[in-house]
């Protein structure tokens, strides 16, 4: 099945070849499981598939009858259906790191302004044209709603130049990837009919809660499918013929079925009551129970688990202890256990705070990757050496500090995040084997985030994340070294003493972190200066370990090719979030001809 398409498909050159490998191994493993099976296989997409009456069905976790369509009001906003009904401004291809057109046809970021061009044939579902004014409205509303673009601009700087062009005056210099990253999750979802009044209320009173209170009963979007109706268990959207994307869409309906929980989702795709699952972690064992016609599409999440240490903790405040832990824990085994033996978690290679470990592209940012400490794991000799040098000693199989106090800690994890629990069980085991007494504690999600991470209870060590969907290193380095979260969640200091890059034995210098990152944000992403700065910060990360990055997630999307054809990895379009909502737009998820 999938192995055919996998190797021979002609794709754009990818700077990240690893996914192909991952995909191929996965395919081989799956092929081995299934043997001979006569269920339908995927077919080549020709681009001239005829229109069909087929319905594509996918899950939603919001009860259709409860749905409201204002994305700024979080109660019962249906996230995945929103991606179908509304267009994102831009789409991000995670494997190539490129931004591609969405509601925006083009964009340009210069030193003092960003010029955004709306697609000229964009139409709202109520029939009116979507223009530059609509984009201005969206940006204004977002700015009133404290969107991060407020870091570079303000309401009065955002104006429509002509029918399709919007100019965003920039108050501080930002490089293009930083700007685009900040708008990449933005949807064009504020039509005049519903949001003009709300915007004027916000203009009168910026503190008004009109926006977050508004609950839109029906959505008006510009996406390829428009709202039709909701039933008890299902949301029905139908093809919008005037859509900018309509030419590539060859099926009549896109439905969302209410499905609560992973077990039900697996059952739904097994039983054929849905055609796809948007994004769901699924172990190889469970994949083995899917019919042959179900394809897995992987995409790097650029999001991953790390162990956050409380830097005010008596022991974790010490660099040697963090390093010893990094040496003692085998990240490869942790990631493998977390993925249930599969390939959906990529272990972090050399911890530098730069994402791209799923295909080793993280190292592309480094001139000399070997100059960084790898912390290969299960290196107990090195770990012991570090602890001893810091005044610890081994007594009765456990490490104690110079005051005779046992090196022990609690490691917290949110109970419902099973993959994290599995990862941390393994993490703890490795530390116990090394003689550090650890105790895993699962916490209720709300208590975990509200009290342990962001509240007063705190933690010794806890599962956290070291990257959040970004690929440009500025974001993850800033998150780990300089963000408010770094300072409030794990009490990271604002300056650190580190030896010069590439010379671990050199004299330590004090580095103020905030100015370093502020310098990086404005640098041209392709410049040598930016590259140098990134390496300097990566060195600090690698040497001081604000967190221990453990793994990167690889999102798994499943599509049944019973009635549909779909592009497979490594087509970069499959790495746009989510394949189920993006691929239909670009004609890479199409219905097979009806019999």
């Amino acid at each position, binding site marked *: 099945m999938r192995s055919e398409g996998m190797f021979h498909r002609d794709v754009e050159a990818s700077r990240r070849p690893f996914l192909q490998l991952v995909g191929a191994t996965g395919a081989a493993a799956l092929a081995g499981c299934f043997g001979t099976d006569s269920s339908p296989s995927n077919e080549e997409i020709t681009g001239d598939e005829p229109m069909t009456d087929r319905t594509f069905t996918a899950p939603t976790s919001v009860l259709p009858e*409860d749905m409201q369509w204002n994305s700024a009001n*979080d109660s019962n906003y249906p996230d995945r259906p929103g991606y179908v009904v509304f267009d994102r401004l831009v789409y991000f291809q995670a494997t190539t790191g490129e931004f591609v057109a969405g509601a925006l046809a083009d964009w340009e970021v210069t030193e003092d302004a960003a010029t955004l061009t709306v697609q000229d044939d964009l139409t709202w579902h109520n029939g009116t044209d979507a223009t530059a004014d609509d984009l201005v409205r969206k940006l204004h509303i977002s700015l009133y709603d*404290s969107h991060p673009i407020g870091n570079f601009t303000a309401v009065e700087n955002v104006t429509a130049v002509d029918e399709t062009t919007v100019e965003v005056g920039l108050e501080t210099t930002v490089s293009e990837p930083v700007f685009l990253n900040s708008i990449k999750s933005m949807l064009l979802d504020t039509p005049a009919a519903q949001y003009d009044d709300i915007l004027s209320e916000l203009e009168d009173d910026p503190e008004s809660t009109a926006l977050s209170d508004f609950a839109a009963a029906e959505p008006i979007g510009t996406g390829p499918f428009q709202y039709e109706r909701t039933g008890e268990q299902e949301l029905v959207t139908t093809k919008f013929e005037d859509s900018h994307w309509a030419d590539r869409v060859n099926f009549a309906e896109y439905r969302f079925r209410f499905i*609560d929980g992973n077990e039900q989702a697996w059952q739904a795709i097994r039983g054929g009551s849905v055609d796809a699952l948007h994004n769901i972690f699924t172990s190889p064992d469970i994949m083995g129970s899917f019919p042959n016609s179900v394809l897995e599409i992987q995409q790097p999440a650029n999001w991953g688990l790390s162990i956050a240490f409380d830097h005010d903790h008596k022991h974790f405040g010490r660099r040697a202890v963090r390093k010893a832990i990094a040496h003692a824990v085998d990240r490869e085994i942790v990631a493998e256990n977390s993925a249930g033996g599969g390939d959906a978690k990529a272990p972090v290679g050399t911890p530098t705070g730069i994402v791209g470990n799923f295909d080793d592209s993280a190292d592309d940012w480094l001139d000399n990757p070997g100059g960084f400490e790898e912390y290969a794991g299960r290196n107990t000799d090195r770990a012991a050496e570090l602890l001893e040098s810091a005044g610890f000693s081994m007594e009765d199989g456990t490490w104690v500090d110079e005051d005779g106090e046992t090196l022990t800690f609690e490691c917290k994890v949110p109970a419902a995040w099973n993959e994290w629990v599995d990862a941390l069980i393994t993490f703890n085991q490795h530390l116990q084997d090394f003689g550090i007494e650890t105790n895993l504690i699962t916490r209720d999600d709300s*208590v975990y985030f509200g009290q342990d991470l962001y509240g007063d209870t705190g933690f010794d060590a806890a599962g956290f994340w070291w990257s959040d969907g970004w690929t440009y290193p500025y974001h993850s380095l800033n998150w780990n070294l300089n963000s408010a979260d770094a300072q409030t969640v794990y009490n990271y200091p604002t300056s650190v003493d580190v030896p010069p890059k590439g010379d671990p034995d050199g004299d330590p210098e004090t580095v103020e972190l905030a100015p370093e990152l502020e310098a990086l944000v404005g640098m041209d992403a392709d410049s040598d200066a930016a590259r140098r700065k990134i390496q300097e910060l990566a060195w600090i990360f690698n040497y001081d370990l604000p967190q221990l990055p453990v793994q990167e997630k690889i999102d798994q999307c499943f599509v049944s090719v019973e009635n549909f054809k779909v592009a497979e990895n490594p087509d970069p379009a499959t790495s746009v979030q989510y394949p189920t909502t993006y691929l239909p737009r670009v004609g890479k998820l199409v219905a097979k001809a009806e019999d």
Partner: protein
Amino acid sequence: MQQYYLERTLQAVITVVSVMTLAFFLLRLMPGNPADAYRAELIQNNPQLSQADIDHRVEQKLNVLPDAPLHEQYINYVAGLLQGDLGESINEGVPVSEIISEALPWTIFTMSLALLLSFAIGISFGAIMAYKEGSYFDNGLSVLSIFCNSIPNYIVGILSIWFLGYQLELFPTGGRYSTEMEPTVGLLEPIQTLAFLGDALWHASLLILSYTVVAAGGWALRMRGNSIQVLGEEYLRVARLRGLSERRIATRYVGRNAVLPLYTALLIAIGFALGGSVILEQVFTYPGVGYYMIEGLEARDYPLMMGVFLVMTVAVVLGVYIADLTYGLIDPRAQTRGGDHR
């Protein structure tokens, strides 16, 4: 007699009020406030959302929360309750009473069916076991009943989902009714109504089964015990001497006198059944009141949790109250005991 009714009524009222008070303060002491829960939810659903964005949204939500002192909140709450206002769900943004009134019929539907079914099965088998006391039939069924009664009902639920739902795909594993089904209940559309009820029943069948299997074992054992006791009573011998048919004795004397003590138990069990739905509905993702209790707990949605808890308590109080008031009417012997049957 009048004083007895008065006492019972007073006690029911006191119970409801004290449970309200208890629940109110307990829930306010919960770790993790709604803001925390909301933050967790945001992070989980929108991994792409920036921290500033999340902070902002949490803050906006917080404005909605009452910052009044605890006692003021309590007084407001009680005052609201008296007007039938259970507050507004923080998470869903709709009145709690709306959520509960929407969910409650489903729990009552499944639980009352399950309860009646288990009661019917239980007393039938219990009576037969008593008649055939000591036989292989009796011994076998007794052990089976004990066994069934030993398994937590949600474990039966997991097993039935596993085999009948996932493996054999005979039954749906969650939800209230099929997607295609238009909910119709009305005398004017008898066919659609029947189809709808049938579909709803089909969806609830595993849940009902799980509850019934366990509960029936308990009822059977109790019925068996009661019947054996009745069978040994003096008046049965008298009845036989009077030449009454075995059938008549079985139904008039044994049946009646063995089932009567179970009447109170059944009424109280109905009251408790709502509370018993908590884990079971979660296992079946069946959106009844028990389901919303856990949902409310996970979201730290105080008003929702409190509302569900109160409804469950009131159900028990009602069950006990009705049992108290009506037992005398059903079993004339009880009247002379002045309601001391408990």
